[in-house]
């Protein structure tokens, strides 16, 4: 009696579009790339498929922090300008199989990137990955615009310094209406905060007023991990690694606990570190 309607049963369930998150700060040197690498590694380790996009064209760094510099054959501009396919350019991580890197071009300039093409690329990546993390260059010029264009969400990285907070404040204004804008306070030194010699997390967020995703202490382990090209998020013994994993959990919505503000290491911990702890 009824018209024969096409049965949608056989059709494969389409993968929900992945989330595109830009990691930005305005000011340079506050730890955007390290944050991107660690959050990406932590998300991927929990089973999600993740691609890290280095949008810092001309100053490629994410591959170094990830320890993948020797594997990079093609970069983001090769893909945008059709010299390489996306699959050729995506580098698989050494440790986590669900983690990919799309490196930036080192010998090109930020103005070489076409904003619309970048938007399309992020959209394409969102069809394939659960998370597209975009490592934004410092500044608020073209490179910044190209990095934020495809992202619905943003993570603002800020250190407890007047200049960093000021720049972060400016960036929050430029990000406009995103689905979500989070804050990561990086390089906190608990001892200095206690002595009143450093802005506290509350001081920073009294200005920025963003949902706090996590706080990362300024500790030697971070430097050691970048020396080696091994994200701390993959180190089960590192408290900073745990902090990055908690950040990833909050992004994914699996961790609803409030971020822990790092405290000073106890005398025993300091003694342990002195006799050859984790930081080498």
């Amino acid at each position, binding site marked *: 009696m009824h018209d024969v309607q096409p049965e949608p049963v056989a059709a494969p369930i389409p993968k929900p579009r992945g989330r595109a998150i830009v990691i930005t700060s305005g000011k340079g040197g506050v730890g955007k790339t390290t944050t991107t690498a660690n959050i990406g590694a932590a998300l991927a380790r929990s089973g999600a498929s993740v691609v890290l996009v280095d949008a810092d064209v001309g100053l490629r760094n994410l591959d170094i922090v990830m320890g993948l510099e020797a594997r990079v054959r093609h970069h983001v501009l090769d893909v945008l300008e059709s010299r390489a396919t996306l699959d050729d350019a995506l580098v698989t991580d050494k440790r986590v199989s669900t983690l990919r890197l799309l490196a930036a071009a080192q010998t090109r300039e930020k103005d070489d990137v076409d904003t619309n093409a970048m938007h399309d690329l992020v959209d394409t990546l969102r069809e394939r990955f659960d998370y597209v993390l975009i490592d934004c260059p410092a500044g608020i010029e073209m490179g910044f615009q190209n990095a934020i264009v495809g992202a619905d969400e943003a993570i603002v990285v800020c250190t407890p*310094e*007047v200049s960093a907070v000021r720049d972060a*404040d400016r960036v929050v204004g430029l990000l406009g209406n995103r689905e979500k804008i989070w804050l990561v306070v990086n390089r906190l030194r608990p001892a200095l905060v206690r002595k009143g010699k450093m802005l506290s997390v509350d*001081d920073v967020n009294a200005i920025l007023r963003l949902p706090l995703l996590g706080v990362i202490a300024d500790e030697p382990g971070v430097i050691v991990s970048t020396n080696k090209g091994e994200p701390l998020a993959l180190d089960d013994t590192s408290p900073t690694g745990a902090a990055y994993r908690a950040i990833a959990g909050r992004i994914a919505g699996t961790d609803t606990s409030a971020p822990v503000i790092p405290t000073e290491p106890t005398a025993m911990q300091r003694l342990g570190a002195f006799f050859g702890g984790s930081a080498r």
Partner: protein
Amino acid sequence: MIDFFKKLFKPEGSSSTARERLRLVLLSDHLSLAPDVVESLKLDLIAVISKYVEVDEAACDVTFERQDSAIAMMANIPILAMKTRPPSPPPAPSAPPSAPEPPPSSFGTPATAKVAEEAPSPKPPAAPRRKRRRRRPGVTPSLGSAAPAPG
């Protein structure tokens, strides 16, 4: 003297300096106004308000706060007394306790309130009239049938 001892026993960290510098720098970032411009704005505001009410100039405070994406100017201007004006109507002094917010304009409010009360009253009758007009096409047959009956 007390400050000296305070500094001696608990040296103030530089974070308070950082906080204050941050506050000031962001203020001018958001406003694109120099601090001396803000100060002259404050003085102008006080001058204008002083025309209507007596204000405590020493306790006046004008600040700018960020509220989500917008910046709000918060003017805290304590009022010492109302300035009595010769043409002020008698209900004016009793107005501030009931409605403390608009004391300067309260002189004009009784008149405007009356107008506002009068204005809506003719409107409700107007609405039914319109309805009747709309109904007319439906009503006319009965009127039409009533009309031929006597004729």
